[in-house]
């Protein structure tokens, strides 16, 4: 997977920073814009953001690392998020998550060897009345059982 890490250009990053900088409190929108364009926030963007906002690179790093969403390295081609929260637990979410991790031979946040699927925990997708829930990239799935998860992973190519 790391062999194909996309390396955006300085100009691309500068344009993304520029597109959000006029907002009040622009740091999160900037990080989101970069991640949505590149799939992660490359290290080279950190000093550029710091410069643009007149804060230190350490502050940018501090903000980035505080939030679960921002990645320093790209994820797999698809991100499968399984809800670990209580409502999903009440409907067998824990067993589903454990079986999925075992099938893929991964720990949470791991990526399959072929770089296709990254598996992440999520704490609530707001699908608590059709638990257990998962999200494949931006697509929500409810009442996930072993068969459904199998179909999701197969479709993703894991």
């Amino acid at each position, binding site marked *: 997977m790391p062999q194909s890490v996309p390396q955006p250009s300085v100009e691309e990053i500068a344009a993304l920073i520029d597109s959000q900088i006029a907002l009040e409190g622009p740091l999160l929108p900037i990080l989101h814009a970069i991640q949505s364009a590149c799939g992660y926030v490359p290290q080279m963007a950190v000093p550029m953001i710091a410069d643009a906002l007149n804060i230190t690179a350490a502050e940018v790093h501090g903000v980035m690392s*505080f939030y679960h*969403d921002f990645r320093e390295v790209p994820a797999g081609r698809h991100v499968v998020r399984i809800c670990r929260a209580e409502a999903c637990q009440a409907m067998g979410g824990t067993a589903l998550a454990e079986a999925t991790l075992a099938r893929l031979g991964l720990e949470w946040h791991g990526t399959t060897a072929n770089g296709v699927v990254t598996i992440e925990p999520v*704490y609530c997708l707001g699908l608590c*009345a*059709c638990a257990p829930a998962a999200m494949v990239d931006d697509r929500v799935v409810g009442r996930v059982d072993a068969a459904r998860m199998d179909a999701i992973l197969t479709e993703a190519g894991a």
Partner: protein
Amino acid sequence: MKVYVPRDSAAKALGADTVAEAIRAEAEKRGLEIELIRNGTRGMIWLEPLVEIDRGAGREGFGPVTVAEVPALLDGTLEGLGKVEEIPFFARQTRLTFARCGVTDPLSLADYEAHGGLRGLRRALGMSAEAIVDEVKLSGLRGRGGAGFPTGIKWDTVRLAHAEQKYIVCNADEGDSGTFADRMIIEGDPFCLIEGMAIAGLGVGATKGYVYLRSEYPDAIAVLNQVVEIARKDGLLGGDVLGSGRAFDMEVRVGAGAYVCGEETSLLNSLEGKRGVVRAKPPLPALEGFMGRPTVVNNVLSLATVPVVFEKGAEFYAGFGLGRSKGTMPIQIAGNVKRGGLYETAFGLPLGELIEDVAGGTASGRPVKAVQVGGPLGAYFAPSQFDTPFGYEEFDGAGGLIGHAGVVVFDDTADMLKMARFAMEFCAVESCGKCTPCRIGAVRGVETIDRIAAGDGSAVPLLTDLCETMKDGSLCALGGFTPYPVMSALTLFPEDFATAKEAAE
């Protein structure tokens, strides 16, 4: 013929998009003229995808509809649920905040207006700021995010503060497990939130609003962004709100996966582009909030309830409820239940009636063991407490909280020691790290519960003591309320904490 297929995430998660596509294709194949409307959800999630068909004599419900059933659906041979509004789960509700959700096309401002929308804002435009705030005070509306602080009093503090710029910040960081009402109204009736924020702006003298919406809700983000654009184009937002000469505009900001940002001061830090750590209070956000300026921070449901208060009057709204819990609460029933979904009702309904009667007990058919009310920081309730009426003070008196009114039901296979451990683990993962009782306490809590699980009974008083410290010493509700689920599990279900010990002996 009008056909309604919800666009709500929960409906989509159960296949609504493919059903909608199948209906469109089948109708085209037959040369049948239909108007396909992607409405919000009615909140009866166990029936999703709940398709409604209006042939001119009211909306008939069908659900859950599968793709294979679509031909029969259009033939008129598929067995239906009758009139949607007569389904008991729906008919028994008092829908004030959610009056339009599931009824209208969420992206149509005309539809919104045809169903009572904008009447509240028009009325507010003719009132003084003080009168607006007084109306909210009179309605008895309290913060629906969980704290239950009187909304009108918060607004008054901001109204009386002097500043060049004030803000309305909507807390849509709905991270509590078992809650989805914010998501549902944003996806199903988003103009209602915009109208509520605009009224808040008029009331306190704020011209700018932000909605801090969690990144786990991509569908809600898309809908709200779309609707803000429509509102701007049609003059509901901008420099001249509904031609009044008054200004109010808003922006949608996306969170980044931190649960603690649902706490209002963390949210403000996050919105400013900082780490989402909690701020000590005072100063109150009402005086020094976003960018250090006076800011109303309200939950989605509080703001989305404001339009109906102004449309029907504060007294009408305050006429519902129980004691100091006035009006209605959109209760979210989730987890192991037969009929899960959103149930808006006046405060006062006993918890047991909600679970056994409204929700029909567990989905698994096994007995109910425990019910967690109010998200991951809410206490577990045992069936022996099912007579507790749904209200802020009533739940407080029973050692719990209603929070954002999420109700998660567990059957008798639930292991309450594991649930207590999960509460501590969650707190450890999500702690912002600012205060020690939460940051360190949660980690030690997990370890202490593991000791109990391994048979070390002497760890029980230690856990109790730790919970006391977290409760008294934490800066915000994350560390301060994690003891609720932990201690309620320990107190109500001691057998789950004792079995391991006895087995070890």
